[in-house]
């Protein structure tokens, strides 16, 4: 299969080439002043800000970006874990019983389109401006995709499998853990992936409006102070966080759902 490998490598190279071309375009646009450097910093300035902020330069980099990144990631992950835990527990409780579903599902469908960030003002009202408030909204907002996915996963058990469970006289608990949960796993994992993107968004917005330490606040302040390179450095970091978290989860999903691949 050497030719296939070769072609794959050529494709990656071509793809990289296009990306580099775009970066080159950025370089020209900013350095030549096509777009004012107030809005579009040069790549080199952005990179310098990144290094400085992450404390990767030899001299007196203030390393703030690293702390901000940790804060934002911490919020995101904590909120996401809480959201996943409660989402699965509640979702299983609701999904397992058709009658509970019938009563509760319409309400869930109403909440589904609600923006998670819309809960921030209410949370501020109740909890005040503090990190706990942001964590609460992150967790609460991210919980819904997991909850809805879990409900769906439990509700959509292959009817044949339910009959097998009856034929084997499986107990209710056995049914939940041996059929409901594994069956819901693909849905739950997809829901958890969506929850992670929501967690990041709400963490950032929460930091912005509640003046909490983190990348959200950092880029807002950078914009207000017209420090474009720092702003871009922050955006790059947020993009990296988004990319890494999604990639990790996709990898975990593939491992856990090995049974889906006929290879």
């Amino acid at each position, binding site marked *: 299969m050497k030719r296939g490998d070769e072609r794959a490598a050529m494709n990656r190279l071509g793809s990289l080439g296009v990306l580099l071309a775009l970066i080159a375009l950025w370089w020209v646009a900013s350095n030549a002043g096509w777009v004012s450097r107030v809005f579009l910093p040069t790549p080199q300035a952005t990179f310098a800000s990144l290094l400085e902020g992450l404390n990767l330069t030899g001299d007196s980099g203030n390393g703030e970006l690293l702390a901000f990144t940790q804060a934002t990631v911490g919020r995101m992950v904590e909120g996401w874990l809480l959201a996943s835990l409660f989402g699965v527990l509640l979702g299983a409780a609701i999904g397992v019983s058709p009658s509970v579903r019938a009563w509760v599902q319409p309400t869930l469908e109403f909440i589904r389109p609600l923006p998670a960030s819309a809960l921030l003002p209410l949370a501020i009202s109740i909890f005040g401006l503090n990190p706990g408030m942001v964590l609460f909204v992150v967790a609460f907002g991210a919980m819904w995709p997991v909850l809805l996915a879990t409900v769906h996963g439990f509700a959509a058990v292959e009817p044949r499998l339910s009959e097998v469970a009856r034929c084997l006289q499986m107990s209710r608990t056995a049914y939940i853990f041996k059929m409901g949960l594994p069956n819901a796993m693909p849905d739950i994992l997809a829901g958890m992936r969506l929850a992670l993107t929501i967690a990041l968004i709400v963490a950032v917005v929460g930091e912005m409006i509640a003046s909490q330490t983190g990348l959200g606040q950092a880029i807002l302040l950078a914009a207000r102070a017209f420090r474009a390179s720092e702003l871009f450095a922050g955006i790059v970091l947020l993009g990296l966080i*988004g990319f890494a978290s999604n990639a990790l989860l996709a990898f975990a999903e593939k491992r856990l759902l090995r049974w889906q691949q006929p290879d």
Partner: protein
Amino acid sequence: MTDHRLLRWLRPWVFPAALVGVFEWYARRASALGSDALAPPSAAARAFVGAAMDGSLWQATGFTLGTAALGLLLGALLGIALGVVLGLSRRAAQLGSMSIEVLRPVPSVALIPLAMLGFGFGVRMELAIVAFATFWPLLVLVQSAVQQVEPRLLEVSRVLGLSARERAFKIVLPAIVPRLFVALRLGVAVALVVAVTVEIAANPNGMGYAMMIAQQSFDPALMLAWLGWIGVVGFAVNAVMLQLQRMVSRRMGVQP
């Protein structure tokens, strides 16, 4: 039998009514004890009517919906165009893949300060972010839809000697209409959510901002009214899009 049907019709409302009832009771107790963080739903309803009467409701709602629509229009047009191109050309898709992988994960909210910097406050800033947010899902979904167009139809277009433009408009676009509507439905949902989020975070216009202002002015009743209204608008818009999508699927002979 009519009893049964009436019950079925009422059932979706029982649980939320119970929740609202509990909330009402709790909020009344809380404000009686001096808290100004919560307001009972009854007060929120009154505040809602007030906002409807004095026009602020419609103005803010109009702004959010209008800006979201414009942003979606821009993002969708670009996303569909690029999606069709990448869907038709395997080469182009491969060349663009890394750039897409790098740019797509950037959360749209991260661009709020940048848009603020470039456009100030107002329609353009929010529109730009909505466009960015809706561009990606539409690109990905349309690309996938085009890639799944029946290859036989594309062969027919070659045999008939259709130009690239003719092929795109006469074969590809009609073939992807059902999936396109699914993508648009998702796009509408994203547009609305992002618009409200931008208003909460920064933009002093629209429903999100109205809700923030209500909270900052210690008017919990109005804040809750806005929260509820945002939920209703989101639900209604999504429901309409779902109906539209189903109608289109049925007309085009596809399983919804």
